[in-house]
């Protein structure tokens, strides 16, 4: 089973210039990927016979005030035995002014709703997503609630919220 560091080195040789640092001093070390290469990297690590990341565990997002981040937790699952093999974490960083990340919904279908959630609550736009609309808040909601600079609504359809 390849370790996260080995996977990072493998990706770095495969996509020179698009794989940034490997951040190790965390509980879960992660690989930073440039946003423009994410869809290609995702297709590669899913279809590569050794890596075979067939399971996207979650897409989470965070607001670091100035940049927005999407974090992809990936796992390789042995479909014969159902056991998990190896995992990797990819992190993509985009500026808050133009937060666009290529969608991976065509690679892992489970990304569809997760990207919608990231869009709804954090405002990251996923280019190439089949149906990028709000999933939790109502249509026509103003703003993205999990952003640090989110302004709470004071009124909703005539209901006072103060």
């Amino acid at each position, binding site marked *: 089973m390849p370790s996260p560091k080995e996977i990072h080195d493998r990706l770095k040789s495969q996509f020179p210039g698009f794989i940034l640092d490997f951040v190790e001093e965390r509980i879960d070390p992660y690989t930073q990927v440039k946003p423009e290469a994410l869809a290609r990297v995702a297709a590669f690590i899913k279809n590569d016979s050794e890596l075979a990341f067939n399971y996207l565990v979650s897409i989470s997002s965070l607001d670091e005030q100035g940049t927005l981040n999407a974090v992809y937790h990936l796992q390789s699952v042995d479909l014969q035995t159902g056991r998990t093999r190896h995992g990797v974490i990819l992190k993509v960083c985009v500026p808050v002014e133009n937060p666009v990340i290529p969608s991976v919904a065509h690679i892992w279908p489970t990304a569809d709703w997760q990207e919608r959630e990231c869009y709804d609550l954090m405002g990251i736009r996923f280019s190439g997503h089949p149906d990028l609309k709000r999933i*939790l*808040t*109502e249509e026509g909601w103003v703003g993205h*609630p999990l952003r640090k600079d*989110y302004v*709470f*609504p004071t009124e*909703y*359809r005539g*209901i*006072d*919220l103060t």
Partner: protein
Amino acid sequence: MAILENRFDENILTTTVDRVINYCRGSSLWPVTFGLACCAIEMMCSGQARYDIARFGAEVFRASPRQADLMIVAGTVTLKMATRVKTLYEQMPEPKYVIALGSCANNGGPYYQHGYHVLKGVDRIIPVDVYVPGCPPRPEALFDAIVKLQKKLLETRLLRRKTDEGSSQPTITGAPAA
């Protein structure tokens, strides 16, 4: 009434129309089948054999608001749901009563300060008869609310309902009708 009492055989009972109708209404409160969050689990539990809400005549959970006269708002009222709750309430026929079950339905509960998506109390959209605190309240608390509602019902005067605009106005629990 005192003139008539004890002047007939044992199987004759004298009472008022108000009392008979209020007793019947209070003993057959039909709630809407409708739960919003974890408080609904307690509400479901109240209907099961261990607690048995049928002891209070409120076991007939109706799937349609048009057949119900009690709305138990069990759980967090999100803004997305708030408009639906209001529609459901408006679809219920008069007389109708509302129990706000749990802290979220009372005033937003743990979401009061940082819940951008939660209504700060269901009484902002519909009138509430009984508030039940707790997070979530135990079935006994719900039964207490039903008993309180029944007591409130016994004090309604049917013939005056047109002038005092009916029971749907929020009043303090257990207070005698004006």
